[in-house]
C-alpha cells in the first residue's frame, strides 16, 4: 500500500486524504447498499479559460468519451455498461465533474475505466468533427429557448468584467475554428491528478479504494499547475436597471444582488432567507407578484448562487410585460428593505423543510456526490459542507434578519429586463 497523508478524520465514516500524486480524495463510507459513487472534480471550468480557449472545457468534456490510447469509444461505453455502471459528466463555470455509479463488486474496474478516459484520451480527429457538430447543435437548441438566451444576456451585463460573463458552451465561431492541438494542450494542462478531487461515497474499503485510485491515475507532472483565476468581487454601486428587446414574445427579469460567501458563518441564515422569499405561503414578494387575481408574473424565484469569489442572490422572474417587471423591482425593494414580516414560526418551518430536502436529495449517492462536487470545487471541504447544513438546523429569526441586513443594506443590484420588440 502506498503512503497517504491523512489530513482530517472528520467523522467515523468520512475521511479526507491526499494521495502522493496530489489528488485529494474524500471518502464517505455508507454500507446501506452495495453501491459506490465516484465523482471526480477537475478544477477546469469556464472561469479558467482564456479568451483564446473559450468553451474549451465543455468541448473537452464531450471529447473525453471518444477514445483513449487503448480503448475505442465503444469499448469505453461497453466496459461501463457491462458492469451496470452509470456514467456521466457536466461542466460548470467553476469546475467539470465526471461521475460513475455502480455495484460495489465492479467499482474498481469502473474507476480504472474512468481514469483511462480522464488521463489517456487521444481526442481522435474524426470524433472531434462529430463532437463539434454536437456542441454547436447544443448551442442552437439553447438559442431557441428564451430562458437560456435571457440567462446569457443577463450574465454578460451583470457580471461584465468577470469570467462569469462568458457562457459555459463558449461561442459558435470559436468552436468551429478550434484545432485539435489547442484542445489537447488545454487537456494536458488541466487534467492531472494534483488538479483533481475524487469524491467516493458508498460501500467500499477506504484503504483499498485509494490504492485503486492511485494506481489508476498515476503520477502528476512536475510542471506547475495552471494559475487560479482572478475574479473581481461583485460590488455594484447602487441600483442599475438595463432594458433590452429580443425576438421572443415573453419578458424576463433577472436581478443579481451581492451575497455572502458559503464559508461565512451567516451563510446558512441567508439560505433560509432565500427559501422564505420563495415560499408562496409566507413571502410577501411572491404574494404580490405571482398570486392574486392579477399576478404581475407567471413565475418568480430566488436562488443563492455560490461561486469562486462571486456570490450572488439572484431573482429570475417571467413578468407579463416590461412595465410589470419595473413594478416587480419596486416590490422587491420594498420587501428586502423591511424583513419584519418574517416570524419565528416561518423560520422554524423553513429550516426544517430545507434540512429535509437536503436529506431527501442526498439519499442518493449520486446526488450527494454532485452536491459535494460544488463545495469542494469552490475550495471547501466535507467539513464545510456538513457545517453549512448543520448550521441551517440552528438558524434563528434574528440570524435571518442579520443576514438580510448584511446583504440588503444598502440595497445594491443589477437588473436586466428583456422583452419583445417595441419596449424601451
Amino acid at each position, binding site marked *: 500500500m502506498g503512503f497517504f497523508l491523512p489530513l482530517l478524520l472528520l467523522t467515523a465514516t468520512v475521511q479526507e486524504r491526499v494521495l502522493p500524486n496530489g489528488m485529494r480524495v474524500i471518502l464517505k463510507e455508507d*454500507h*446501506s*447498499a*452495495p*453501491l459506490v459513487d465516484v465523482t471526480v472534480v477537475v478544477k477546469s471550468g469556464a472561469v479558467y479559460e482564456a479568451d483564446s480557449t473559450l468553451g474549451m472545457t465543455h468541448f473537452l468534456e464531450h471529447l473525453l468519451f471518444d477514445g483513449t490510447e487503448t480503448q475505442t469509444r465503444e469499448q469505453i461505453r*461497453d466496459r461501463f*455498461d*457491462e*458492469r*451496470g*455502471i*452509470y456514467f456521466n459528466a457536466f461542466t460548470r463555470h467553476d469546475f467539470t465533474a465526471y461521475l460513475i*455509479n*455502480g*455495484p*460495489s*463488486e*465492479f467499482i474498481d474496474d469502473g474507476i480504472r475505466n474512468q481514469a483511462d478516459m480522464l488521463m489517456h484520451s487521444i481526442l481522435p480527429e474524426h470524433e472531434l468533427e462529430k463532437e463539434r457538430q454536437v456542441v454547436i447543435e447544443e448551442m442552437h437548441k439553447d438559442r431557441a429557448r428564451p430562458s437560456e438566451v435571457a440567462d446569457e444576456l443577463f450574465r454578460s451585463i451583470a457580471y461584465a468584467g468577470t469570467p462569469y460573463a462568458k457562457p459555459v458552451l463558449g461561442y459558435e465561431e470559436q468552436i468551429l475554428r478550434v484545432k485539435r492541438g489547442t484542445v489537447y494542450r488545454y487537456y494536458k494542462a488541466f487534467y492531472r491528478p494534483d488538479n483533481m478531487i475524487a469524491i467516493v461515497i458508498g460501500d467500499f474499503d477506504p484503504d483499498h479504494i485509494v490504492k485503486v485510485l492511485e494506481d489508476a491515475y498515476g503520477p502528476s507532472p512536475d510542471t506547475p499547475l495552471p494559475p487560479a483565476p482572478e475574479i473581481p468581487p461583485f460590488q455594484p454601486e447602487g441600483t442599475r436597471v438595463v432594458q433590452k428587446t429580443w425576438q421572443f414574445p415573453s419578458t424576463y427579469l433577472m436581478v443579481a444582488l451581492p451575497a455572502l460567501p458559503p464559508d461565512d458563518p451567516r451563510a446558512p441564515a441567508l439560505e433560509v432567507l432565500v427559501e422564505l422569499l420563495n415560499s408562496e*405561503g409566507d413571502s410577501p414578494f411572491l404574494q404580490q407578484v405571482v398570486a392574486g387575481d392579477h399576478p404581475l408574473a407567471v413565475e418568480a424565484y430566488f436562488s443563492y448562487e455560490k461561486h469562486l469569489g462571486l456570490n450572488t442572490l439572484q431573482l429570475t422572474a417571467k413578468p407579463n410585460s416590461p412595465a410589470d417587471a419595473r413594478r416587480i423591482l419596486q416590490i422587491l425593494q420594498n420587501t428586502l428593505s423591511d424583513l419584519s414580516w418574517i416570524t419565528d414560526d416561518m423560520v*422554524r*418551518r*423553513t429550516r*426544517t*423543510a430545507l*434540512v*429535509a*430536502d437536503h*436529506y*431527501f436529495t442526498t*439519499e*442518493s*449517492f*449520486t446526488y450527494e456526490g454532485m452536491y459535494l462536487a460544488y463545495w469542494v470545487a469552490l475550495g471547501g471541504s466535507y467539513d464545510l459542507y456538513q457545517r453549512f447544513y448543520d448550521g441551517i438546523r440552528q438558524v434563528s429569526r434574528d440570524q435571518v434578519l442579520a443576514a438580510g441586513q448584511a446583504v440588503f443594506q444598502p440595497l445594491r443590484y443589477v437588473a436586466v429586463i428583456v422583452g419583445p420588440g417595441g419596449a424601451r
Partner: protein
Amino acid sequence: MNTLRAAGLGLMAAAVLALGCVQKTEKPIVKTVLPNGLTVIVKTVPGSPVSAIHLLVGHRMAFEKKPGESNLVQMMLDQGAGDLDRQAIARRIEELGAQLKTHDNPYFPFDDYYNSRDFAYVRFKVLSENLEPALDFFALLVRRPTFPEKELARIKARVLATLRESQVIPDKVARNRFYSLLFQGSPLAHPILGTPESVAEITRDDLVRYYQAAYVPANCILTIVSDRPASWVLERVRKLFGDWSGSANLAPDTAALKPVEPQTVEIPVPGKRAYIYMGTKIPGLRDLDAPALRVAAMVLSDRMAGELREKRGLAYRLGAFTRFYSPGVGVFALVMGTSSHKYAEARKGMQEMLESLVQNPPTEQEIRRVVNASWGSHLRYHQKKINQAYFLSLYEYLDPGYEYDLAQIRLLRQVRPEDVVRVARKYLQPKQMVLVAAGGF
C-alpha cells in the same frame, strides 16, 4: 399460463440466501394483515434520517364510474382533510420536513415513472425524527379527505387544460389508444386522466363515492420504511388504521386476460413528430416465462439504442419494456419517437429489431450486460427509502410477494439465450403485434 405457484416463496427465500450482495443489505422486513384486511409491510433501516410511508390503492380503474375519478381523488387528497384546508396541509408538510406525492405531474417529463393504470399511490417522505406525528398526519390525509368544492373546480380546470394539451402530443395519444386496444373491455383500458367529457361531468359526490369504494383496507397495502423497530411501527399502525372499515367488492377482471387481436392504427396528429407503440400481451409476473421476457425487453432496448438511434439516427426517444398487472397479465412493448418523415423507416426498424431476437439470438455476454445494467439501476432506485417502500408494495400487489424485490436479480441472471429465443417465438411474433402510431404522417 404456467406459474411460479409451485416454486412459491421457497424460491424467493433461496434466492435471497444465495445472493451474497443482497444478503449484505437485507434488513428485517415484517408483513402482517390486520383483521380489517389492510396489508402492512414494515422495513427497518437503523440510523436512516429519512423515513417513507407508502400507500398502494389497488384496482384504481375498476372503481371508476366516470373515467378520471381516480386521478381527481388523488389530486384532491392534499386539498383538504379533517379540519385542515389546503394551506394548512401545506404548512403541516413543511413543519414535518416532509414531501407528499399522490399523482403524476404532467409538466415533468419523467414524473410518470410510478404512474400506473392498475393502482394509485400516496408517497410520503419525512425526516425520521418526525415519523410519529407524520404517521398521524398521513392517516388523516388518507382516511379523512374532505374534497372541498372550491378546490375541485380549480383542480378540474387544471386536468382539463392538461387533457386539451395531451390531444396534440403524439406520445400521449398513441399510448392511450395502445392500452385501450390491448385491454378492451377491462377497466385497465381507462385513460388515467379520463377524457375531457368525463372529467367535465365529475362531481364532488362522484369523488366521495369513488373514495368510499376504493379506499378500503382490504384494497390497500401500507408500507413503512423507517429507522424504528417493526413492533413500534405496527403498534402505531394498528392504532391509526385498525378501525378503518369497508370492503372492496370487485369481480375478477377476466377481460384483461383475453388475447388481443393484432392490428395497426394510425392516428393523425398535427406536427412533425410521430410516436409508435408496438406490443402485445404477455403472462403475468408470476409466470415462469416472465424473467426471460423481461430480459428480452432489456436486450431489445439495448439493440434499439445501438442500431436505430446511434447507427441509423432514427429516433429521439426509444426503448422496449415489460409491465405487469394485477389480473395476472403483462404487456411487452417497443416504443419510439421519431420525425414524421422517418416514420415508415422507424416502424420497419422496430420490426427488424423484434425479429432479431430469434434470427440473431442474444449472446451470454449481451444478456450479462443488460442484466448487470438492470442490477445497477435497481440499486440506484433502492437508495431512496420511498422507492424501497414502493417496490415492496408493488411486488406484494402483483402477487409474487414483496420478497420478489430481492429475488428478481437471481431470476434474471438465470436467463439463458435459448430462453429469450423461446419466449420471443412464443409471444413476440411481429405479425401478432398491436401497432399504434400517432403523429404527422
